[in-house]
């Protein structure tokens, strides 16, 4: 048995590597040549042309695009096996939080050093990092260990796509100004036998929770946030709570059943939920919306392409956003505008294959070439789904409403991304269960407390989770903050 365990346990190194003339394998997510954005129109080709131009300037180097195959899960069994085997493509695209889970495995290459070099494809550029339209957003994707593993090529935003024709027929003038107006109009829509609002893939509860959280905690956040956000991300995230900060605050009683704001967030999300589609996970919102059976579709900028080109749609549609929660709805509300949901879209990583194959420098050079404004605008405008994150890149005007939304600040925390997958899944699971009346609020808060505690405990001894500095800040604010907990009810 020992022998059997021996050969299966260790990381095996890949033998068939470092062969001369082997092309660099690249997965560029939605921009991989041959992909048809939203299944509509012609396959994209621009990235191939850009690679051809790069190859011309780099004799002997070759780029081969490869679609990273998705089996329908974000975790990606495929990528995982390829990484274990050291045969993953050199460049892969995915949400960078996935890479954070694998920091101790050296599967991905930190890019910080390269971001400090000049991008030679942009005249006058001194640091690659300076070339990004939103460096704060780019920096905000730093892993818990302080390193940056991803290059954020572009940004994505979500908004309310609404059926104008339908709302007019029901006597609803336009997008609501406040939260309570929104709920009132949803009631009217629902009474007319139409689903008021939903989002694809059960995402409404995830996004909704973050947005409500920020609006309820808005006034408290400056004193709550134990470590101020680093200056290089201030323009995008103010008082952003890192996972370890959230964990620390939990140990002090926040985000638990002792915290009245926390209760309020959960109450509001549940109240909101009654206007969503009945099915939480797969309500088929696109079909509902396109066929006039859904009033508001909460979806990302990529849906524009779909709506604009659909010949069968027989209603007028508009784009709006989540209204602010006011005192009318909750005593904790400040009336501050809802934060945006979205941020980095195409997040590109370099894997251990580049190191094993000795192609790391080439990979970086190619990414620099790709992210020069004259090149990035070609691929983002061809796909028409996301806004380029590079200074001087021109944006297609059809995406303009979303660049308006993008002027808002990021939410204070992305709860579902903050937690490690195991705990996130537990939370997500009970959140749905609560929203489906499987749990009362008390039962729900209780399991959340337990899950939170288990998550914090799992980080014991983790250097990034050293609470010393936060504890010092806490001591100075303790008096004020503790008053916010356990109020007389």
């Amino acid at each position: 048995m020992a022998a059997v365990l021996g050969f299966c346990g260790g990381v095996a190194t890949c033998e068939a590597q470092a062969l001369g003339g082997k092309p660099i394998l690249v997965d560029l997510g939605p921009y991989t040549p041959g992909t048809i954005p939203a299944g509509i129109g012609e396959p994209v080709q621009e990235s191939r042309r850009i690679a051809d131009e790069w190859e011309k300037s780099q004799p002997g180097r070759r780029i081969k695009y490869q679609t990273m195959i998705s089996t329908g899960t974000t975790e990606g069994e495929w990528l995982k096996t390829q990484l274990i085997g050291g045969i993953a493509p050199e460049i892969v695209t995915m949400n960078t939080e996935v890479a954070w889970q694998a920091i101790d495995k050296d599967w991905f290459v930190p890019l910080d050093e390269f971001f400090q070099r000049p991008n030679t494809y942009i005249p006058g550029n001194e640091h690659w990092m300076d070339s990004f339209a939103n460096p704060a957003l780019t920096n905000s994707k730093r892993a818990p260990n302080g390193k940056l593993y991803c290059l954020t090529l572009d940004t994505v935003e979500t908004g309310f796509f609404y059926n104008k024709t339908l709302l007019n027929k029901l006597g609803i003038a336009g997008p609501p100004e406040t939260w309570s107006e929104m709920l009132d109009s949803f009631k009217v829509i629902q009474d007319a036998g139409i689903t008021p609002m939903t989002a694809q893939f059960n995402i409404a509860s995830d996004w909704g929770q973050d947005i409500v959280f920020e609006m309820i905690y808005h006034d408290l956040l400056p004193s709550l946030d134990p470590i101020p956000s680093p200056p290089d991300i201030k323009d995008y995230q103010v008082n952003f709570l890192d996972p370890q900060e959230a964990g620390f605050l939990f140990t002090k009683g926040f985000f638990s059943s002792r915290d009245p704001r926390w209760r309020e967030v959960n109450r509001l999300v549940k109240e909101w939920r009654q206007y969503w589609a009945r099915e939480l996970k797969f309500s088929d919102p696109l079909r509902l919306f396109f066929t006039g059976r859904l009033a508001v579709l909460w979806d990302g900028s990529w849906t524009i392409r779909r709506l604009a080109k659909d010949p069968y749609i027989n209603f007028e549609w508009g784009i709006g956003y989540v209204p602010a929660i006011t005192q009318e709805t909750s005593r904790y509300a400040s009336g501050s505008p809802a934060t945006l949901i979205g941020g980095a879209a195409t997040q590109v990583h370099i894997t251990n294959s580049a190191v094993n194959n000795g192609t790391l420098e080439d990979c970086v050079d190619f990414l620099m070439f790709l992210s020069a404004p004259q090149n990035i605008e070609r691929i983002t405008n061809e796909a028409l789904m996301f806004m380029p994150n590079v200074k001087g890149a021109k944006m297609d005007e059809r995406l303009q409403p979303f660049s308006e939304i993008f002027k808002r600040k990021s939410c204070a925390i992305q709860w579902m991304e903050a937690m490690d997958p195991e705990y996130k899944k537990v939370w997500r699971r009970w959140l749905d269960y609560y929203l489906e009346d499987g749990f009362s609020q008390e039962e729900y808060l209780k399991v959340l407390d337990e899950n939170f505690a288990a998550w914090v405990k799992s980080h014991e001894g983790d250097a990034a989770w050293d609470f010393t500095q936060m504890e010092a800040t806490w001591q100075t604010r303790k008096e004020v903050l503790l008053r916010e907990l356990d109020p007389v009810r």
Partner: protein
Amino acid sequence: MNSTPSGKARRRAGRPAGQPSLWIIYSLLFVPFSLLVVFNYVPAMSALGHAFTDWDPGKPAVWTGLSNFQQLLQDPIFLKSLANLAKLGLFVFVVNLTIPFLVAEMIFHLRSERWSYAARVALVLPMIVPGVVVYMIWQYIYSDAGILTAVLEGLGLNNWIYGWLSHPKTALWAVAFVGFPFAHGFNVLIYYAGLANIPQSILDAAEVDGLGSAGKMLRIHIPLMLGQIRLLTIVTMIGVINGFESVYILTRDGGPGYETMVPGLYMFLNGFVFERMGYAAAIGLLLLFFLLVFTLLINRFIRTEDYEPGA
């Protein structure tokens, strides 16, 4: 085990006198068995061996003895998944054994050879449709824009409409009903084979005895098809106990809550999502144990005249 002395004698008598030499037999077995050992036993043993370790693939495994199993038997999620498996398994087991049987009887009773053939083709063709597609169709049946909702709305039964797959009360049954009307081609054909194989003389005798069709089904068809029933029982059980594809595609994580969690999915999630491959292996080993016990029991309870090595 089950042989009477006379049975043994009969078998020995039926055995050919001359046998090829042992080395010929073993050398013929060499290729199939080395494939089996190299590609199945080595990885299977490795997988099952990891049941006694703490293993996060990509890092070395750490020996932990029986602790995975101790943890497993106290894991409320695993226990819940067993309870779900019992409900789901019983349902799937009953419908997958009875409905194909009834369908096979009906096809068998079709007098026209052409219709009977057409019916069999209609059952076989859908076998090439990938499971992913079938489950997708069901998602669209259950969704807010789906057929089920439309039908209930049309009947004015608005209070009966649920988010079928996300409501705690309905989710498990929504998963169980996937595959309706449960006339799976393979099962029907196997029953059909059994029916077609019953000697005409026995059927004639039944007719003389004045047995009705129900009587014939119960007293002639079923006893003579025990072989088929046993085969399908075992194949169905392997599918039910190890399977999780339908739950995985329909509810993703065995939700809402753990209402649709089954052990196979829990094993998968542990292995691929929670990075606890050792724990996943422990679940797999337990499932394998259940299946082996179950198969042995079935082989004891459903006996046939057919010769079986080791029997």
